[in-house]
């Protein structure tokens, strides 16, 4: 039995269980905590894909910063137990059915692909997915998009303050 396959199976099952908890939990705070565990298990899967840097960013930015923001807002709003289930309207039933339909189509389509990971030489193995190689790509080929993202984050920060502030 392949140890990589076993690890993948464990992480995949835990990811799907946590994601299911996110969409079924009654209170938003339970959803948020389930989402944090989903991000951690996904980071494990990223490591299996040799994407160590993205896994670290996932834990730091997603499970750290973004989820703290979510929890902060949930506690700020103080929703209490008013979280009732929405009535099953026609739109909602059709939406759920279309999500299941998309899943069926994707599973059938992806099941037909025979995809094997590339066999990398020892030279490529040493650099694949490291911080150095990703940084080199970003700061040479993708420098302008990188700067655009920094501008986007600044605009989002200012916009969030403007929108959330009660009186300017």
């Amino acid at each position, binding site marked *: 039995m392949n140890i990589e396959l076993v690890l993948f199976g464990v992480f995949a099952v835990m990811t799907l269980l946590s994601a299911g908890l996110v969409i079924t939990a009654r209170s938003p705070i339970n959803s948020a905590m389930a989402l944090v565990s989903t991000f951690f298990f996904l980071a494990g899967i990223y490591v299996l894909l040799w994407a160590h840097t993205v896994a670290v960013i996932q834990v730091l930015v997603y499970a750290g910063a973004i989820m703290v923001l979510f929890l902060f807002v*949930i506690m700020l709003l103080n929703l209490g137990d008013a979280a009732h289930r929405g009535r099953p309207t026609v739109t909602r039933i059709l939406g759920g059915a279309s999500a299941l339909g998309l899943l069926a189509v994707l599973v059938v389509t992806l099941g037909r692909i025979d995809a094997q990971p590339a066999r990398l030489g020892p030279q490529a193995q040493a650099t694949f997915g490291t911080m150095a190689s990703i940084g080199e790509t970003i700061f040479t080929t993708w420098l302008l998009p990188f700067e655009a993202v920094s501008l986007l984050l600044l605009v989002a920060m200012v916009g969030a303050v403007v929108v959330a502030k009660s009186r300017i």
Partner: protein
Amino acid sequence: MVPITYYLLLAAALFCMGMFGVLVRTNALVVFMCVELMLNAVNLTFLAFARMHGDGMGHVSAFFVIAVAAAEAAIGLAIVIAVFRSRGSVNVDDIRTMKH
């Protein structure tokens, strides 16, 4: 080696669970969390294809997706706070001013 198909199937399942939550849940905060689930599924697809081709470009794409998701979360949560302040609810069924 795990075939890339398994990772793609996991990403498809995750994406559809996020889509299901977006379309079915009524709490705006949970809807946002489901959008994050969908973004993560797309990230997983990027990384799986990067591993399949032995090309680091997918990692850069995932990095950009995470950065944009951070901006989206900040703006979206600010809008949720503003709506809650004026309507007293985060239920997407109650917010129907822009319908019709």
